């Protein structure tokens, strides 16, 4: 017996050691999706008291003020792990500003600060930018640094817009539930995508029943699932199956078989590229015959599938913020200018950054037209009020802001046809 117990001990020790090794090996391999995956906490959404901010634009104080230049700050991580998002945002912002300045007239002078994806550096950067005389801020990129800067910017009454921070509490104070009235964003928040896809399933596909396959340990996936379910309840879309997978899962055959048996009209899969690349072939394997819907985490899924298997996702539709295939002249002009200036086609982040710059500078123009001198509190208040009243067509769609300062805009729907992404249209 004694021997048996030592046997047990060694085996258990090994099992746990190995589990630990695996945990340490598989971490950090996330790809795809937005830069904010880790920090999302969307469950607080329901507890929010929405304050309807007064959207009154201050009275003009005199004739239009014509300054030589207006200085704005750009906070972005240009080194560190979030650098690729930061560079995409910087490139989008700079393209808009350079084009704008080239027209003559008002000149915008941007000051860029590399916050390295670090919360502390972001705050230091913000204060440094303020010392250098900025009157408005674009940034930051990931939600953590952005949220670190927001309270200070709010106290300063600083007009601020982020292109990519999707966390709910970027525009809403987590502790009080009040809206940070000076902060805007040009990207979708995650729950919005779930709501949109539920509407799409009901209105466009005409689905009566839906199934969901989501990961219960990825906030992005949970946030979209909850929004989809909530919206489905409102519009009479019946959820006939809800299946779960773990982060890093590779086997979805069991779940897909259950879903196939429930025979839903659509299957919603709010996930990143790796699960999607496996769900395609595995859904073909179980003979699943339903339209699969996804969200922006799907961008690039076909790139990690073999050529012969890409067609297994044919007919699937997913939502995204931006498509270079959009034939809208404004989008095509943006794509060609960006490609010429930067050397590669723009991604969603660059497009949203371009729009953020457009929204901010349009508001600055109006504040100046009201007669406010840059770097005065009245100018900043006027810029904020004009941003809140934004109503313009940008490259990611026609943008207005809701009472939480989140953009209301149409999303782009991509359909997979013959193993290739095709623009379905906007929705």
């Amino acid at each position, binding site marked *: 017996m004694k021997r048996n117990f030592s046997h047990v001990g060694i085996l258990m020790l090994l099992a746990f050691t190995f589990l630990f090794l695996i945990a340490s090996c598989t971490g950090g391999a996330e790809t795809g999706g937005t830069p904010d995956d880790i920090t999302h906490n969307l469950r607080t959404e329901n507890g929010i008291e929405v304050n309807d901010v007064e959207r009154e634009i201050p009275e003009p104080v005199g004739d239009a003020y014509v300054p030589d230049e207006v200085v704005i700050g750009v906070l972005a991580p240009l080194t560190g792990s979030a650098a690729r998002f930061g560079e995409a945002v910087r490139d989008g912002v700079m393209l808009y500003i350079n084009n704008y300045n080239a027209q003559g007239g008002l000149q915008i002078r941007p000051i860029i600060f590399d916050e390295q994806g670090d919360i502390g550096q972001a705050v230091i950067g913000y204060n440094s930018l303020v010392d250098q005389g900025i009157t408005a801020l674009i940034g930051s990129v990931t939600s953590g640094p952005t949220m670190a800067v927001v309270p200070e910017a709010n106290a300063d009454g600083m007009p601020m817009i982020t292109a990519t921070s999707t966390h709910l509490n970027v525009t809403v104070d987590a502790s009080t539930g009040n809206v940070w009235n000076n902060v805007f964003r040009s990207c979708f928040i995650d729950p919005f995508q779930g709501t949109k896809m539920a509407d799409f399933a009901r209105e466009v596909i005409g689905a009566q029943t839906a199934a969901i396959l989501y990961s219960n340990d990825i906030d992005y996936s949970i946030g979209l699932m909850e929004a989809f379910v909530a919206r489905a309840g409102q519009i009479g879309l019946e959820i006939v199956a809800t299946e779960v997978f773990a982060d890093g899962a590779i086997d979805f055959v069991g779940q897909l078989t259950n879903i196939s048996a429930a025979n839903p009209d659509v299957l919603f899969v709010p996930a990143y590229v790796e699960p999607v690349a496996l769900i395609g072939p595995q859904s073909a394997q179980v003979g699943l015959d339903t339209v699969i819907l996804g969200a922006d985490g799907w961008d690039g899924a076909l790139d990690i599938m073999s*050529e012969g298997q890409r067609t297994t996702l044919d007919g699937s539709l997913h939502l995204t913020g931006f498509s270079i295939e959009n034939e809208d002249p404004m989008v095509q002009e943006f794509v060609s200018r960006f490609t010429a200036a930067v050397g590669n086609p723009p991604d969603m982040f660059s497009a949203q950054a371009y729009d953020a710059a457009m929204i901010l500078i349009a508001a600055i123009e109006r504040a100046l037209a009201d007669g406010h001198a840059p770097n005065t509190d009245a100018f900043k208040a006027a810029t904020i009020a004009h941003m809140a009243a934004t109503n313009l067509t940008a490259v990611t769609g026609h943008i207005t802001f809701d009472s939480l300062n989140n953009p209301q805009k149409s999303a782009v729907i991509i359909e997979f046809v013959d193993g290739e992404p095709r623009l379905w249209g906007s929705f």
Partner: protein
Amino acid sequence: MLFLSQLINGLQLGSIYALVALGYNMVYGIVKLLNFAHGDIIMVGAYIALFSLNYNHHPVVAALLTVGGCTLLAIVIEKTAYSPLRLAPRLSLLITAIGVSILLQNLAQFFFEARGRAFPADRLLPTGTVSIGDATVSYTSLLTIGISVASMIVLTFIVNKTKLGKAMRAVSEDTGAAQLMGVNVNVVITFTFAVGAALAGVGALMYGVRFPLITPTIGAMLGLKAFVAAVFGGIGSIPGAMIGGFMIGLLEVLVIHMGYSGWADGVVFMLLIIVLLVRPTGIMGRNLMEKV
């Protein structure tokens, strides 16, 4: 009919686990080593198959390269890492195995990059589904189960009917006595690693077909699940590995079938703990009682 579909799913998954678990148990049976690098040999095999198929090799050529490559890799590992430690304490051997596992994973990340690569499964086995009653079953499921069972039959034949198999059983029973009887223990041990790795090569192909996204860390989870299968079936027992593998695959799918898809992995590892507490020798394991 849903149940039949899920049964086939479970058998397909289980046959992959069984192929891997066989490698664990054969090696454990001979040298009392839990070869934790075994899962990573499968990872390397999956990459060999992936590149070979992408170079438009014939599926049979790709399969032979994969099985051959895994076998060769296992022999190299055995000769360089394990063989020098033949007389060292078993714990040293075990730590070496974990070291080899980490080395293989990191080498793979270095050479093949950490990103997932698409496995062209459609070039290896025919795609498509067949209806059995109301149930839809894919060709790949049936072929995976068939190929695995065939591999196990070949293995059983080798172990029970050939001279080397006899030597393997002898070394497993009593290494010292076998050596005294003129069995070349080193050859037998290398052969055992080679056969285990050949099965791993087959497992790698079957894995790629079912999970066509290959990363340098795929061996870790697969190895762990197969380890649970090996312990459940009885560590060191060849029929135990087969039964354990199929049971784990079926269990996982059963949990999902019952609607607890989030619990599938948890239940498998819970089973490991229960088996270790209640019956550490597994269902087919020999009860090693030692006289004091």
